């Protein structure tokens, strides 16, 4: 199967999947499975008809009317996909900077935590623990900013290569996340810098592992994004 045929089969699939309102990861799964199906059908038809163009037409016909299939796929999307779609929408807005996005996540986290935790602290007479809310906010800011930085470093096409230096800086910086937040909380509650530092020592292995915890999901997400963009660049009209 040559490049052009492969592209034509992708277009047959993309006409059906692109208009479906679903999360990016769900649509990628659909695309892969439907492409496997159409590729197998094409091979059957090419062997039978001995003509690639006729085989492509027959494949499209056997696959079905794109608009009808889009409607049927839309109905099969479970409600639980809405949350994932919402989160993807939050994370993938292209009209804002990394800093702006991180601040947006932090503010939302801060308010959600404040609404849920402050009344609980008040009822249990534990208002002194309010800095926990700040810690959540800082953690989210750190996570959002650094995961964005890593994603950009890992997200480039093969031709351009990856920005390994930027990635290494982001990975090293993320090591300070666990220890930094713990020292901050320790200082807030006890005011004793020495005991706060002692509290952090057992967390050093966790600090070393933090970049790994970041890079695995971020790399998966970057790979999904690359694949999604490749599908979205296909001309379907």
């Amino acid at each position, binding site marked *: 199967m040559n490049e052009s045929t492969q592209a034509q089969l992708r277009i047959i699939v993309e006409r059906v999947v692109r208009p479906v309102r679903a999360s990016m990861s769900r649509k990628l799964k*659909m695309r892969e*499975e439907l*492409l496997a*199906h159409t*590729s197998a*059908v094409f091979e059957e038809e090419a062997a039978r008809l001995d003509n690639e163009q006729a085989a492509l037409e027959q494949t499209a016909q056997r696959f*079905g009317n794109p608009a009808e*299939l889009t409607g049927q*796929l839309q109905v099969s999307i479970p409600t639980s996909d809405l949350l994932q779609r919402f989160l993807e929408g939050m994370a993938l807005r292209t009209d804002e900077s990394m800093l702006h996005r991180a601040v947006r996540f932090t503010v939302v986290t801060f308010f959600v935590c404040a609404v849920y935790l402050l009344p609980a602290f008040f009822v249990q007479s534990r208002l002194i623990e309010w800095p926990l809310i700040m810690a959540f906010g800082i953690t989210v800011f750190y996570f959002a900013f650094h995961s964005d930085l890593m994603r950009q470093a890992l997200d480039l096409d093969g031709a351009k290569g990856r920005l390994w230096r930027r990635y290494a800086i982001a990975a090293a910086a993320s090591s300070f996340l666990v220890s930094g937040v713990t020292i901050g909380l320790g200082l807030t509650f006890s005011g004793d810098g020495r005991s706060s530092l002692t509290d952090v020592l057992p967390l050093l292995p966790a600090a070393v592992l933090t970049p790994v915890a970041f890079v695995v999901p971020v790399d998966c997400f970057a790979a999904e994004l690359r694949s999604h963009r490749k599908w979205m660049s296909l001309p379907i009209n």
Partner: protein
Amino acid sequence: VEAINGDKLRGHLEERVLSTLERGDAHGLEIVGRLEEAGCGLLRLTEGSLYPALYRLEAAGEVKAVWEAEPYGRRGARRRIYRLTGKGQRKLNEGRVEWQQLVHVIGGILGAPA
């Protein structure tokens, strides 16, 4: 005999898919093949319609799917292999009872009992 397709076919599609999986795990194209074979070539399904049905069955826990380890073809995409679950087997059994009742009732109305 004229081929049966379109709306007439969409009813009971899920039960028919479950019944093909009763014969063993299968990917989409294999399910289409089994359906055609079982229908003696008279049941013409637009093949893309199978997948929404499979996704609904999967969401309902009536089938379970796993990705094939190796991609199909040289540079191809991976297929998913579907398996009937216990819940799916129960739905299939219920579907068979309902179908027999339907055939009995409609057959009685038309004066052509099964």
